Structure formats: structure tokens, C-alpha cells
């Protein structure tokens, strides 16, 4: 169980790989890649078993490593370092080396005495503060704050994709041909926004007494039936 560490301990897949390499006392240059790949995949699997939400980058790296391992095991069929092309293992090592440099640089940076933590500048009353902190970013921030305040201008495309009204129409028309539909069946994608739209549309239809929403048991699947259908609650 020593693998079960909090994923939040790692900044990303490269960080986790570096940890595994250090733990095995491997040298980045003469890296034995297979055991590291296995340990990485083990780790990811355990995280998934524990229902720990993993950032997509960890999973992307997992599938990449599975591919890499399959290449290593089948050298005759897939030549991973075809003439001229970059060797993926070398590339991975380079990425790890660069990341390790930056991680170390970050550690060194955070050891420096920090202003407002270890050193304090002369204090200024709020009103006396100067313009010195004005920069392009503050202009961009101002624009985005205007945008978020006047969202109706920027959300048009998104609303066109999943509108409650349209979803209501869709549900009504499906109900014409079928007695009942499970809410999840209405979803064409697995986007959260679509699920929310479906639920809102169903609630709205129920409010208008056009449909009835039925849930057989606690946490059971919710389905919709037409108002006049013979289905019992």
C-alpha cells in the first residue's frame, strides 16, 4: 500500500514519474523504463479503484506509457526509433530532465526570503499607492470582467447548443412515439451542461403538467412519461 499517496502530492504525471524513478534509485540516464511504466500504471489503477478523481493529464500519460510499453515488448513489429525519427523514450527522458530542472529551480525560488512573508516593504495607505502595477494583464483583466458582467453577449453560442426550450420540444416529440424515456437516454453527449439542460427541461414540462417524472426508488433512474399515459407512479 505504500503507493497510495495523495495524488495532490504530485503536480502532474511528470512529477509522479520522477518520484517513481527516485524511489527506485534509478538514474534518469540509464533508466529502466519498463518497471517505471508498470509502477505508474499500478499507481493510477489504485487511484481509480479508490475513486480518486485524476486530472486528465495522468490518464493521458498512462495511455501513452501503455503504448510505449507495447512498442518495447514488440520490437520486431514496431520499430520505435525508426531512422531519423525521435526515439520516444529519449523524448520522455528529455521531458523528465527539463521538468526536473524546473522543479528544482522552483524549490530554489521558494527558499528565497519572500516579500510580504520574510521581508516587508514600506507600507502605504491604500490611497497612496502608485500606478506601478499597471500592465497589459490589468487591461485584459478589466475587459474580461466587463465580459463576465455582461454575459448575455458572450454566451450566445453555448446557449444555442443546449437550450431548455429546445430540449422540452425534443422530449415532447420523443414522448409522442414512446411511452416512457429515461432522462439519461435523452443525452446525446456526456457533457454536464446537456444533462443539466435535460433535467431543467423535464422539470419545466412537469411544472406545466405536460409530463410526469417518476423515480422508482431512492437514487433510482428517473424517467419521464406523458401526462395521459397509463404508467402508474
Amino acid at each position, binding site marked *: 500500500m505504500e503507493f497510495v499517496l495523495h495524488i495532490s502530492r504530485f503536480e502532474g504525471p511528470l512529477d509522479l514519474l520522477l518520484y517513481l524513478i527516485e524511489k527506485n534509485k534509478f538514474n534518469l540516464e540509464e533508466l529502466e523504463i519498463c518497471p517505471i511504466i508498470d509502477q505508474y500504471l499500478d499507481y493510477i489503477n489504485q487511484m481509480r479503484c479508490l475513486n480518486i478523481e485524476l486530472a486528465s493529464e495522468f490518464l493521458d500519460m498512462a495511455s501513452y506509457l501503455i503504448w510505449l510499453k507495447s512498442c518495447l515488448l514488440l520490437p520486431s513489429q514496431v520499430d520505435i526509433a525508426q531512422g531519423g525519427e525521435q526515439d520516444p523514450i529519449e523524448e520522455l527522458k528529455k521531458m523528465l530532465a527539463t521538468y526536473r530542472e524546473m522543479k528544482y529551480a522552483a524549490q530554489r525560488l521558494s527558499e528565497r526570503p519572500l516579500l510580504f512573508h520574510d521581508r516587508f516593504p*514600506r507600507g502605504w495607505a491604500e490611497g497612496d499607492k502608485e500606478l506601478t*502595477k499597471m500592465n497589459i494583464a490589468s487591461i485584459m483583466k478589466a475587459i474580461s470582467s*466587463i465580459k463576465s458582467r455582461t454575459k448575455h453577449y458572450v454566451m450566445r453560442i453555448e446557449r444555442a447548443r443546449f437550450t431548455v426550450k429546445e430540449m422540452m420540444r425534443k422530449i415532447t416529440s420523443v414522448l409522442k412515439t414512446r411511452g416512457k424515456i429515461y432522462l439519461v437516454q435523452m443525452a446525446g453527449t456526456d457533457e454536464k451542461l446537456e444533462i443539466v439542460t435535460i433535467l431543467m427541461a423535464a422539470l419545466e414540462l412537469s411544472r406545466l403538467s405536460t409530463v410526469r417524472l417518476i423515480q422508482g426508488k431512492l437514487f433510482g433512474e428517473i424517467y419521464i412519461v406523458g401526462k395521459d399515459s397509463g404508467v402508474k407512479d
Partner: protein
Amino acid sequence: MRNSEIVEALIFSAEGALSIKDILNILPDASKQEIEDIVTELNRTYDRSGRSFMIEKVSNGYMFATKKEYSPYLRGLHKTKRLSNAAIEVLAVIAYKGPCSKQTVDNIRGVDSSSALRTLVDNHLVDIKAGRPLKYITTKRFLEVFGLNSISDLPDIAQFQEIFGEDQNIEQEEDLFL
């Protein structure tokens, strides 16, 4: 570490005036009298050693200030006051949309911008162009303060969502500024 050093550091780093009560919160074993004596003694030391600053007693506490006699030199430092968020918003709109009228600025922001516009003009960040209606434009000073060579150095608004996208789901292509 002596209390006088700590008191000096506290007053030095405080934003605005620091009250004796605030000081006593951090040095609970000191007394009000002791703090007052420390400040008097510090000022005496500054005077004796020819420091150009001193601790002033203002209505609500103590604060550092440079002595009056240096003010002719300090005026050369060109302090420009910090802008409110509203003023930066107006400035941003004029930078991207200018020259434009107050009406345009108000429409885009959804609120009245009179007072922010006034601040910007007072700070020489925005200038007025004659006409009906009056038009507002950013100035050379604006470019200096924001470290731009020209107004075309401002990034494209469509690129903002890279870090300022409030929500990944919101597509910002359809926007007001196009």
C-alpha cells in the same frame, strides 16, 4: 530583539497609520507609555543621525513620513495614483475601441462612466478629441505607464480566454468587441 526595533518594523511596514492598540496586540507585554517612549526615542535617534524621515503621530496612530525639507526633490518622482477597477475598465474599453464616445463606453460597460473618465483625463491617461459627440482616446502617457510601444501592442481580445476564460464551457468567440 528589543521592543523598539519591533515597533519600528511594525510602523514601517503598516499600510497607513498604525494605532498603539495594534502594536499592543503584537507586543502584549508592552504598555501604552512604553510605546510612546519608544517612538519619541526613535525620532530622537533619527534626528541625531541625520535621517530624512521620522515617525509622525497622526489622529489614528503612527506613520513614517519623509521630512518636509526634502519635498522639492520628491516631487520629481512623478507619483501617479492607483486607478480604481472602474477606471481601468474604461481605460481598457478606450484602448480597444477608441477613439469612442462616452455613450459607447457606457453601453459596453453597462454602467455610467463619467467619474472614471474624469479620473483618467486628470491622470493624462485619456485625452478628449473635439467633435459631436466628444471622442476619447488614450494618450502617450498611457503607453508609457503600461509599457507599450504602440496601441497595436495590445493582445487580440480573442486570445484572452487562454487564462481569463471564466468557464471553459463558455465560448467567447461571439463577443462584443468583434
